[in-house]
């Protein structure tokens, strides 16, 4: 199934709910066209290969969130995903947006910023061919020493506009921990400044927690800009280093009622990392969310 930007933004351009993209949690049915609930198998297993796709489908997942690299390597795993009737809901570009390591939309080194955009544009082209509706991106950290937040923000806005200009894909800006513009208020301001209909926001529960936000409040602050949710947990116990570990739901500080409130009818992906026992974590995540 391919979903065009127009379809995606139907219903007044507001939320694309589970009715269109997904189903209610735990009610996946044979033969439906849903893509949610989705899961990021690369995060789940900690590996770029040997994903247990059939098992994930049998647990109740209907869609996948994958990395740009996985999109470039579609031939290696797409047949198995098709066989498992798992469709690609979202490309999560954060692995391409590790400041300096891989790139950034606000890099002060222009050649690397352009290189980042070039790679994301290539990903968008593949996504368009495959009919993948969502691309998640995130702000960067401040470039070292001489970049002001305003300069970084201007580059980010320009980059988002450039990505949005090339097709139907919805570009979702997400707040990531240990980076700039991580609050919902800051993200909302940037999405509004970009002012492109296919630029919206995503909320990552674990990231929101690490940023010191309650997920329900963060979702409320994003309002109608919020189109997608990612769910994993974070350990905020006093004295424990703040790390973006993508913990299984229920093992950190996430509260069910807050996550359910944030989720509403949104399409979503489980973004837990649990290489030791991925299927148990995947199963537990759906149970926790239901």
């Amino acid at each position, binding site marked *: 199934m391919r979903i065009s930007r127009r379809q995606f933004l139907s219903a007044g351009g507001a939320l694309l709910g589970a009715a269109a993209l997904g189903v209610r949690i735990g009610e996946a049915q044979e033969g439906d066209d849903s893509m949610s609930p989705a899961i990021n198998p690369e995060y789940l297993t900690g590996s770029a290969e040997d994903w247990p796709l059939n098992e994930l489908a049998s647990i109740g997942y209907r869609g996948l969130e994958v990395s740009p690299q996985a999109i470039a390597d579609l031939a290696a795993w797409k047949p198995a995903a098709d066989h498992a009737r798992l469709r690609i809901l979202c490309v999560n570009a954060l692995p391409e947006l590790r400041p*300096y*390591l891989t790139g950034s939309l606000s890099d002060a080194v222009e050649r690397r910023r352009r290189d980042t955009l070039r790679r994301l544009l290539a990903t968008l082209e593949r996504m368009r061919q495959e009919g993948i509706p969502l691309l998640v991106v*995130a702000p960067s950290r401040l470039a070292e020493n001489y970049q002001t937040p305003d300069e970084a923000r201007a580059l980010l806005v320009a980059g988002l506009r450039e990505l949005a200009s090339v097709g139907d894909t919805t570009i979702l800006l997400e707040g990531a921990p240990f980076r700039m513009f991580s609050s919902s208020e800051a993200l909302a301001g940037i999405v509004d400044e970009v002012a492109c209909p296919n630029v919206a926001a995503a909320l990552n529960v674990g990231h929101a927690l690490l940023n010191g936000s309650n997920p329900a409040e963060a979702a409320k602050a994003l309002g109608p800009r919020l189109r997608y949710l990612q769910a*994993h947990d974070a350990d905020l116990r006093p*004295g424990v280093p703040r790390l973006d570990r993508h913990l299984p739901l229920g093992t950190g500080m996430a509260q069910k009622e807050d996550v359910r409130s944030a989720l509403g009818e949104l399409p979503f992906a489980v973004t837990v990392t649990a290489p030791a026992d991925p299927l148990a974590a995947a199963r537990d995540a759906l149970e926790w969310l239901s």
Partner: protein
Amino acid sequence: MPSNDRLPRVWVRPVEPEEYPGFEERRLKPVTRADLDQQFHTVALRGFSYDRSPAEPPHKFRVVNLKETLDLYTVEYDFGRVVWPMWPFLFAENWREVIDELFARRLYLFDIWAYCPSGVFERFEWSEYRVPDEVHQYILRKMGPRFLGYDNGEQDGRYIGGYAKSVCPAPATRPQGFQAFCQYFRQLGDDLQNYLTALNSLTFSHYFAHLGNHRLLGAECAQALPSVPMWYAFIRGAGRQYGILWFGNASVWNRWGAKSLADPSAEDTNAPGFFSGPTAGTSLSLLRRLWYVLTMYGSVIMGYEAGQLASGTVERTVNGVTKQVPDLTDIGREHMRGAQWCADHPDRGVQHTPVALLWDFYAGWAPPRHLYTGDTYLVWGNMPYEKGDHQIDLLLRELYPDYPDAGFFHNERGFLTATPCGDSFDVILSNAPRQVLDRYACIVALGETPIEGELLEKLSWCLQRGAHVVACANQLSPEAAALFGVTVGDQGEAYHAVIPDHPWPINEPRFTFHRLTCQPDAEVLAHTRQGSPLVVRRQHEGGGFTLLFAADFFLSERLLSPDKIANEVDEPLASPFATLEHAKGILLPYLRSFNLVTVDGPPVQFLVNVSSRTDRLLVTLCNNSPQPWEGTVRPKRAGLTSARTWMTGEEIPGKESIRVLVPPLDVVVVELLLDAPAFEARR
């Protein structure tokens, strides 16, 4: 314990990079001693002057006063032959002239510094830049091996502090942590022609060496950086594992400011934008001790970061020409004194490091706290310590007391430490080949390091060659357990230990251990009251022993929750675990026994250097206390024919041992000539 019946076999050869397998095939050759003219070198200067600010558009600028500057630092004052400049000169209009002049004077071009990821190039300060091919090729053609590399300057700390945590999600496995680390350093290497010198700021020197694009390893010590004896166990170990020489340097900076003795009567001030002055920054005594300690560690280059010249001038005649030049500061005088001392004592031998601390290649271990983050207890900068990482930390605290405090205390605690078991350890990673492990009389396996497969095969080989191997039962595969003379059973708990030849049972914090069934040739050195073995020793045909601890990582169960651990300046850092008392009681004397001398007296840092002359030992005693140190030094296997301090040249009387006085916060190197060989030289 090592046998007293025969002489210890001691590796006396220095690292010779060209003797390492694969040297000829390496795309980038490490610096060899031949490249350095078989000499020890000292650093002359750290930068050049320009006719205008390079940052000023259109960024056309020239290096000026080049000859005068080089004359001042290498002729009028012979600080050394190594020039360590900041990078903008690479883009000066007369960059060729600079290279030509360095070449004509047969100087070394070293560690071109101030690369900074994402820093704006046009600022010509801490900036990200790419070395133009034309410039690089010209430097190589002109300088040849006398070009020592571009600076990978404290970038491990920068990665940990600024980038590791933005890896999303944080690595789930340690190989993923390694991969993310490598992503950062691939970028840096590509920008800098993959022709690097590693100025480490943390404990990742093995990984830099592993990348294959570094010519030298080293560090600029003090600042707010790690404890030097602990740190150089890593740097030296990486150098020995990968066949790369290492250098030393000492910084005038500390966490709070920088020492400036340009005007010794000036008050400390914040006027330059940072705290600076005669009493700011690194103390003169620490600078002095670092010179001799780093030199005796085998550094091929040594220097002080800055501050050698005063603002006042003096008249000086050199080569028949008299002129006014800046006077020396106390730092400058200490530099000249240290350089002369090194020239007067060229036969410093090789530091005796009989014990390898070995752990898994992918460990990514870093000290529990450091300058670059307020977080504590992380590996790779983005993964929490596991219990095995705490074992490494806690053993290092026994070997280098207070080491985690380096950079955190105004009184400089931790930068140099006492060494109760001797400054005699190298850190080696599990991928080390046999010929590297073969250097060590004892290998202690630490951390989350499964002893199986290739590592087990290598350790077995070392045992056959007479080495000793130490491990914990929770690290062993069944095959490894057989080597240690046990079968590993289920887990139990205890809170005491009995050492048969000790007068009293030992109370312990609660700990988990594996029940061991011993083979007949295994000797139980400690057990529970119920008779369950806690420490098992087994002798092997090659003459060495295996020593096995039943307790997991010989640590207690967790004693402190994370919220009870504060990371504050001028406060020690608590550990959530404790090394078990019976492990200390057995392991520490065992490790100490590999030293060639016995040092008795108050806590002191000591190291021994050896050479092919088996009746000669060099003992460095570094007193890191404000009290005078007085104690005795006794060679273990021979009497003395003479002893002489290299600091004054005076003889020290003594037949079996010598009594040595080390002034407060000072260092003494003593040469011992023996009436019989103290060891057998391994070549």
